[in-house]
């Protein structure tokens, strides 16, 4: 390994300037749980590292009537411990709680997970289901991109040279909403999702009808996917097994997975249907104010 320059700017303008100056050979460092590993294994090369943890905009964590502002460098552990997230953006807490062990969760950020842009990333489906919007800073100022449009290919995203992700904003869910993320892994811990599914639903006041729903799928295509056709199937339907099964069947059709060491394409399509069903049921339970007793891995 060769020498690498390191800077830790304290203003967004400085960060953008360093990124712009180095362009191709620069990488942002938040928790470093992907970056350091990839540098060591030679999967990526970098001459300049910009530590973004000292940028105040990237450490924002605020929930209010406008919604949730989640700074790109906020670690998973803070996400999981946040009362408003546990209450209203529960899928984010579900994701944060299964990314790595406690040490990793104290370093890794959801923003970093998004920028790493892996098809099986555990937090991206949750951010998609909760209608997250990425705020990106660059030489031309700020721009916004919906989370589902952020990733473009495995390991690739819409960030242009000189740009960095600042925060992800989420609208405050309506009353009677609930969300959940679950992945299937062959072990019960320390694994990459064979399939991951997140869903956010809003029910009628009496909890009998789907008013809104967003389903997002991970590891079944080159990028995490907003399953729009499956989501729209829910709207206006009574909350019952049939409606959930119909959405799950539609999700299965949207899945376009590959076969690899983590599972065959057929198996992933099958799991997409099973998990979508289970995740929707759990999201409904939460929307009705109930508790979801899910043991990760089971």
């Amino acid at each position, binding site marked *: 390994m*060769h020498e690498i320059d390191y800077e830790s700017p304290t203003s967004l303008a400085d960060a953008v300037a360093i990124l712009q100056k180095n362009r191709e050979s620069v990488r942002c460092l938040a928790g470093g749980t992907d970056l350091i590993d990839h540098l060591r294994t030679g999967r990526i090369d970098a001459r300049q590292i910009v530590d973004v943890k000292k940028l105040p905009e990237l450490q924002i964590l605020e929930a209010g009537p406008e919604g949730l502002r989640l700074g790109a460098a906020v670690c998973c552990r803070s996400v999981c411990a946040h009362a408003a997230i546990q209450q209203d953006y529960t899928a984010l807490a579900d994701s944060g709680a299964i990314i790595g062990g406690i040490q990793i969760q104290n370093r890794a950020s959801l923003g970093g997970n998004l920028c790493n842009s892996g098809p099986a990333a555990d937090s991206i489906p949750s951010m998609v289901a909760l209608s997250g919007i990425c705020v990106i800073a660059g030489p031309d100022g700020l721009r916004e991109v919906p989370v589902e449009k952020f990733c473009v290919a495995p390991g690739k995203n819409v960030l242009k040279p000189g740009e960095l992700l600042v925060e992800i904003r989420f609208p405050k869910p309506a009353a009677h909403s609930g969300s959940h993320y679950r992945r299937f892994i062959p072990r019960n811990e320390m694994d990459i999702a064979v399939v991951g599914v997140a869903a956010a639903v809003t029910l009628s006041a009496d909890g009998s009808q789907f008013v809104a729903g967003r389903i997002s799928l991970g590891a079944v295509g080159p990028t995490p996917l907003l399953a729009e056709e499956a989501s729209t199937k829910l709207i206006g339907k009574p909350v019952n097994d049939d409606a959930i099964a119909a959405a799950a069947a539609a999700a299965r059709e949207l899945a376009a997975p590959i076969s690899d060491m983590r*599972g065959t394409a057929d198996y992933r399509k099958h799991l997409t249907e*099973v998990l979508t069903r289970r995740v929707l049921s759990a999201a409904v339970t939460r929307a009705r104010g109930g508790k979801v007793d899910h043991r990760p891995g089971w």
Partner: protein
Amino acid sequence: MPDNAQRSYKVIGTRPIRHDGVDKVTGRAKYGADVMLTGLLAGAVLRSPHAHARIRSIDTSAAEALPGVRAVATARDLPDQGSRMVELGEGSVNMRHLSANVLAHDKVLYKGHAVAAVAADNIHIAQEALKLIRVDYEPLPPVMTVTEAMRAGAPLLNDDVVTQPAGNAEALAESKPSNVAKHFLFEKGNLDEGFARAKHVVEREFHLATVHQGYIEPHNATALWHADGKVSVWMSTQGSFTARQQTAELLRIPVSDVKVTPMEIGGGFGGKISVYLPPVAAILSRKTGRPVKIVMDRAAVFEATGPTPGGVIRVKLGADESGKLVAADAWLAYEAGAYPGSPVGAGCMCIFACYDIPNARVEGFDVCVNKPRTNAYRAPGSTQAAFAVETVVDEICQRLKLDPLEFRLKNASSEGTRRVDGPVFSRVGLVETLQAIGNSEHYKSPPGGPNRGRGMASGFWFNVGLKSSVTATIGCDGKVALVEGSPDIGGTRTSIAMQFAETLGIPVEDVHPAVADTDSVGYTDVTGGSRVTFSTGIAAVEAARDLERQLVSRAAELWNVPADQVCYTNGVMTAPGHKATFKELVAELHETGEPLVGRGTSGKANQAGAFATHLVDVEVDPETGKVQILRYTAAQDVGTAIHPSYVEGQIQGGVGQGIGWALNEEYWYDDRGSMRNATFLDYRLPTCYDLPMIEPILVEVPDPSHPYGVRGVGEVPICPPPAAIAIAIAQAAGVRMTELPMAPHKVMAAILAKSRPGNGQPH
């Protein structure tokens, strides 16, 4: 022979804190990667990107020119081996193959095969230099399975391998190069007559994946080629003497010119017997005049050390109406990897070892494929065999509507049973393990709940004796320095010290055990074959007896009484009118005469073999195919449990590895013969969340060939788990899994296939 079970011990059977424990938990213990010497250089190894290729040329000039690079080595720097065979403690090895495995000669035979090595001022320079080595390869088609490799006209890996017959197998009329290195045949009784008598016959074919031991510590070696031609090696190894011999033979220098210092070892399970790095570090040291350290990364450990083989097994069993097994036929083909040497012979000997069957036949094939050369892994070859035979046994029980426990008790091997390969069992405890399971709380409580099932399976491993040496020096304070040659991979420093302390009648805390280098202790065979507590234990007992004789004679001298009136029991020396504790006596002797040094060796005794029976409850998710292990009980004949906690630990460890092997572990290859999951993330060892508390039941049937009845315990616990879990899955989900690992996608595919109309599984 005294009945050991009736004897009461002071030290044996207690659970003292291990002597090496404090340094290990405080991080002070020195492992191979901790070796630091003046002028130390960092070594790195260039590995083949191809599974099978001819090496046209290697150009190292650019690497040599990189500042900070001190030397580059290739196979040209290794001496020619001709085609000699050398006995290396684990069977004879073709030295040309061993040499080519250390650094590829004219061909690479697996992805990750070492091709060249660099020594540089630091590891970063060494790694940069590897990128500058130009290797011109001519890629050849990879051969990845035994089925492909055995096919006529298959691409040939080694042109110097011809099929050798073993057992009753006959030599082929024409000896031409083949991927099949060895053909075993063992027979007993009359197979045709046996099957003619059988009312129920079940035959199944099983497919097995390559799996790795998964030890946490990667292979490492530091070598210094001294100016006088002697070579020092510091390394992680299960056998310092075999490592010394292999290194010396590979370098073609006298064996005693090599000194191997075994460092602490972070797991081996059989995988740290073959040498990979020491000869490479040594030639780099010879070139530079400086010590060179090489440490593998995890990918190299997976891709270039010795996993245990995948392969194919067919088993056919016949039982009569009463449920007595009357005929058994098995066919095993194991992957040797790049060079001959799979444990298929052991697989053949183990496959029917749990059953007393009058008519049997076993045929086995050692088959070269483009994977790393396989190596020992905990009861090598037996787990695969147990998976196959125990599954078929369960199907026979199902057919006959017989209770699996009753069936096994009816057919179990016991003292006097002759194995298909010839040997007759002495006192063994299979029946006792079956009874222990039958009496367990687990057996008596049904698994309960939907999608749950229970499986039972037994397993066998030989265990070996071999040679060990121990010396013991009594200090002036009455404490004993116990020097042994067995690298400690399972708490054996303590189990050896306990036997020594028991024999000499002193507290085990007063014994300071140390594992010495090859110049500082007598010859000792590898830590393997579950032999150390047995065989090095015998040597320690002999050393204690030697000291006892010396103490008696010195006390007689000191007290001026005839030696036959001096008596030493429970650490107290007495004679008419005299009495002294061990410590009092030793203090006095220290002032009055020569030092007290005892010696003990072993090598004649052989073990009787170990059996285990396991019981497991699983739950299968019928929608995902995922299997959860709910409860696990392992009964094992452990002879005499010297340190019960370590015996339990060995059983739990073996079961844990067996569960991983059963459910998720495998080398996942792409179509170019490249392993795609050479990381601990994707090579799925079980985590603590995947394992229940594993309950061991220690069944003590003392082995008559050891003074305290010790039986090796480390290996047999890995044998039953895959079979027991497969049987439990069959009960839970109604599908018979015949392929390892029983990963969720495979179980799900079987469940879906069963539910399709007309696609019911055979029963």
